[in-house]
């Protein structure tokens, strides 16, 4: 299957989903209409689920996201959670002293039954 590449904008993140099982969302996710933006991302994961790698590593490196994106990000995780035949690991990055971003990651970790690793970095 083909990789999914979306270039980041002022309001949407860079998306780099590789069929080799490396998935990256990076930047800011603050569009007014997030459902429209996240639809191809969720569709890609559905397709990927038909023949996934044995390991899927998901890197979320978000600087900002709005509440409208927060539900869509949850849907991304739920879709990943539902994939059979692959072991999904999520790395949630946050900038040092950005407690809100760390807290957001912990909220997802509490809802989603996948292993999360919280990774503190100096700058995203």
């Amino acid at each position, binding site marked *: 299957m083909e990789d999914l590449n979306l270039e980041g904008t*002022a*309001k949407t993140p860079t998306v780099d989903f590789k069929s080799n099982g490396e998935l990256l969302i990076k930047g800011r996710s*603050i569009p*007014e*209409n*997030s*459902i*429209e933006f996240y639809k191809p991302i969720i569709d890609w994961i559905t397709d990927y689920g038909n023949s996934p790698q044995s390991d899927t590593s998901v890197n979320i490196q978000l600087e*900002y996201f*709005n*509440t*409208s*994106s*927060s*539900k*869509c990000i*949850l849907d991304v995780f739920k879709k990943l959670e539902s994939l059979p035949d692959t072991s999904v690991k999520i790395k949630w990055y946050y*900038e040092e*002293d*950005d407690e*809100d971003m760390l*807290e957001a990651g912990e*909220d997802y970790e*509490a*809802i989603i039954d996948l292993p999360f690793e919280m990774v503190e970095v100096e700058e995203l």
Partner: protein
Amino acid sequence: MDTFDLYRTMEKDNVLIAFKGSITSELLTSVLQIMETKMEDLDDAPKTRKKVFNVLVECLQNLYHHIEEFEVVGDAEEVTEKKSAIFSISRTEECYYIVTGNFVSKKNVDSLKNKIDYINKLDRAELKQYYKSILNNGEMSEKGGGGLGFIDIAKKSGEKLKYSIKELDTTYSFFTLTVKITQKK
């Protein structure tokens, strides 16, 4: 009020940006960009800049979604007027204030009040729990709003949501929200 009076009022209130008119996606992109640059120039702590930016996104997008969904009955002029809004961002040494104002239907005032009053009763841990339960309940409007805006604003600002509602006539009221964000050192 003449323009100089307006200028002096804004100066006295430490206004960085003020706007009145229709709220478009492009406007929000520009305002957010201007505010990011301003906060950098003002040398605010990164933590403050992040908080203000986050809360500002939610406040302005709340306005945007409200106006998009707001049903106004009347001629074109009436629709344009009622779908206009106002917002301002002010900054003192201690804190930022984000103020938004918009028309609301009088019939929706009670549910709006109830929603905010409920949020204002919650402490930090309860807010966090409430946010998580709304996030996970699966409901979402077509455009992706999910009723999380006010909760997120309260949670991130760490302050109670201050609001006022002014009754205008039998159909409309004017809703004003003031959010305070204390500057982090």
